[in-house]
């Protein structure tokens, strides 16, 4: 438990927030913008800790395609996949200049669960998720012609034999949801990590796996080929796209926190302190994207779920990470393969 005593504790979070508020106040002064003259000076590099062509790539392109209108800069994605995002984060923290021209676009849930398994080499408070883009709940799905028509069918089968479940990786909110389902119902599941959403879906579609667990946005994007059976959220806000699947809490009367994947932009915390003017420009222009109809059109065209697009500031992301930390620690032995 001592693992998380230092990073992301209440004090760090508060001091971080205070810094940001201070920065915002400073930059609202009449001369504030003078410091930012010439920013951005060149392209904004966005480190993405997953592979090109994946879900993060798609989301990022849709977002920056509109953001560039307001920021007057081009965005260069820099894909650094590996070890469930660890490579990208370490690369960003270790190699990228701390001048506001370098951002990270990550999936907070699975990537933060990584740190529960093993801490990174940098102190967690050195990185700040400053803007959440979406909240995408995990879901359990089967292929369209599966004998499992409802989640009850799955649970009943899981009580008779161990069901193989494909997942993107063990340290993922959707995997945690599946484990929670097993714990609550007594059904036996065997999580098979297949490295990435595409492989997770392929495992189910090709019939090798009995079912899969993944972010519901990726499941919905596959259309009729898949059937969603359960969603790990308080409410299934995209019921029409997800076969009207019930939520875990509704169906089983549990009080599981929403198990969301949540994509967010992050930045070196020192940039917020040292270049508050630059940070303000980034933050202000970013927020405008959410109100732009062009962004909504881009999300819908890419088969995304608009209801999942959900801006959140630093306080929201910190609150989210706190929740992820709690569930992560609860299932830590299953995520690491070692007894606690």
């Amino acid at each position, binding site marked *: 438990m001592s693992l998380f005593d230092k990073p992301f504790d209440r004090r760090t979070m508060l001091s971080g927030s205070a810094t940001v508020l201070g920065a915002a106040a400073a930059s609202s002064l009449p001369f504030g913008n003078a410091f930012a003259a010439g920013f951005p000076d060149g392209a904004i590099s966005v480190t993405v800790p997953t592979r*090109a062509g994946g879900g993060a790539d798609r989301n990022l392109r849709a977002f920056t395609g509109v953001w560039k209108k307001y920021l007057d800069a081009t965005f260069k994605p820099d894909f650094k996949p590996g*070890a469930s995002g660890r490579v990208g984060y370490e690369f960003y923290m270790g190699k990228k200049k701390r001048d506001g021209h370098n951002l990270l676009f990550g999936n907070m849930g699975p990537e933060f669960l*990584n740190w529960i398994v093993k801490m990174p080499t940098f102190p967690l408070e050195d990185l700040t998720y400053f803007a959440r883009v979406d909240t995408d709940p995990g879901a359990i799905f089967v292929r369209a012609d599966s004998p499992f028509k409802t989640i009850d069918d799955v649970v009943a089968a899981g009580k008779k034999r161990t069901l193989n479940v494909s997942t993107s990786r063990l340290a993922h909110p959707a995997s945690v949801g599946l484990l929670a389902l097993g714990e609550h119902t007594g059904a036996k599941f*065997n999580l098979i990590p297949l490295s990435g959403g595409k492989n997770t879906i392929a495992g189910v*579609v090709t019939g090798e796996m009995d079912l899969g667990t993944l972010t519901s946005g990726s499941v919905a994007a596959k259309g009729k080929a898949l059937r969603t059976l359960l969603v790990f959220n308080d409410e299934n806000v995209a019921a029409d796209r997800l076969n009207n699947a019930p939520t875990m809490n509704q169906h089983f009367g549990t009080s599981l926190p929403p198990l969301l994947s949540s994509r967010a932009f992050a930045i070196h915390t020192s940039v917020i302190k040292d270049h508050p003017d630059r940070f303000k420009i980034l933050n202000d222009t970013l927020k405008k994207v959410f109100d732009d109809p062009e962004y909504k059109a881009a999300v819908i065209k890419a088969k995304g779920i608009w209801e999942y697009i959900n801006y959140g500031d630093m306080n929201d992301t910190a609150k989210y990470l706190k929740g992820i930390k709690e569930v992560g620690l609860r299932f830590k032995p299953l995520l690491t393969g070692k007894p606690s």
Partner: protein
Amino acid sequence: MEFCEVDVSIQMFAELFVHTLGFWWIILPAMLLGLIVGAIPGFSAANTIIILLPLTFAMEVEQGIVFMVALYASSRMGAGIPAILVNIPGTAGAAATPLDGYPMARAGLGQQALAMSFVASTAGGLLTTIIALIAMPWLAQVAFFMHSVEMIVVMLFGISLIATIAAKNTLKGLIAGLLGLMIGAVGTDFVYETPRATFGFLELYDGIPLVPALVGLFAVSEAFLVIEGESILTRRGKELMANPSWQATFEGVRMCAKRWWHVIWCSLIGLVIGVIPGAGASIASFVAYQQSRSFSKTPELYGTGHPEGLIAPESANNGVTSGTLVPLMVIGLPGGATAAIMLVVLEFHGVNFGPQLFSEQPEIGFGIFMAMAVTYLLMIFTILPLSRYMTKVTIVSTAFMAPVIISFTLVGSFVPREFGFDMGLALGFGVLGYIARRTNYHVAAILIGIILGPLLEGFFLRAIRMANGDLGVLFSSNIGNALWVALVVTVALPYLLDYLRKRRRQQKTM
């Protein structure tokens, strides 16, 4: 024939062919670009399409498809050129090409080798594209039957090449192969992602990157060796290259045509492996090479510049190209990395995959394969005449060639991941390759281990974890068991044939 409520007739294909030919103005530049990026180590169709995503997003969906497919097919052919001429396989899919291609180039038969590679690629690509067009619904079924257990055996077909290579010097061959497998196992484990043998380098967490290993073991080590000679050519090679003529190109075409059965068979291996999600051109090339050698009457010639050893991987890796598109279009699952990027573009344009695609938008469903067929047809006529000129690279003085190869391959090592570390890694593999060559350890054996080892481990762990640790799962499927038998037969066959030949010879002399 009827597929998904679409009347599939010869007339429809003819119309589609003419329609696709109308896109020549996209196909030709895409083809040229594909050949260039294919030939540069580190670049591939996948990362080029990523770079050009804004362009493909802006195009009409059909134009975008034609562009990507033309680039994909031609990049595969482009990768064969440096693999043959200067021992630089730019992608893992071309890793088996230099085994016999480069010795041919050194022997002054570069033109023949290139012509053979072009014809084998085109014929393999065209044939498999036509088969894919006709048999798509059935071919897509392969993905439903080839699971982890079956894939383990497919991998072993490729890995058994190590044993074959080791035949001349068993102990050294096996040490090289097993060292390759150990190096290939560097990186985090597949389930819990604990780092293994990474020397603390973050850059190794995702495993050994293939391009630095490929170019290091093959090209960098070769560059350090060839500086002893004036050119890479052998003495006989120099004599042959002294009087270049078109004749050599025609000879290459003839050599390939004579082995038509080989082209068909190896490209079909590529097609089937290409259809399986998670398998790709590298596996297909090695499996085709292994199969080709097993059934050959002259297995001892493989690795010395044997035409069949070049035809096998080249027709197979082009078979993969059409294969990967089958599950993409029929079930919306990409069969490989390039198909995965194509998926992004097609999803961006709102294309609905699945059987309904062929009834709703046949110009896309069938059109993607037709674009490939047209590309291959246009490509063979444009590239074949160039083989004579490309081969001239082999006569360039090594004093100029070696530095260019080294800098070119280091640059190529950097490109896929943009880590400076990968350049150092390529040099490290270059030194390993140099020592291996100088002391008669086969670099190909090391490389097969590095490429196929992690894939095998991934499928193995998946199968075992699904079976809760029961090793019996390896023999639990009918298709898997049939493949096991085929594996044993093809591995034992060369020894058996050799034994029978010797016995026959003995009987004759008696």
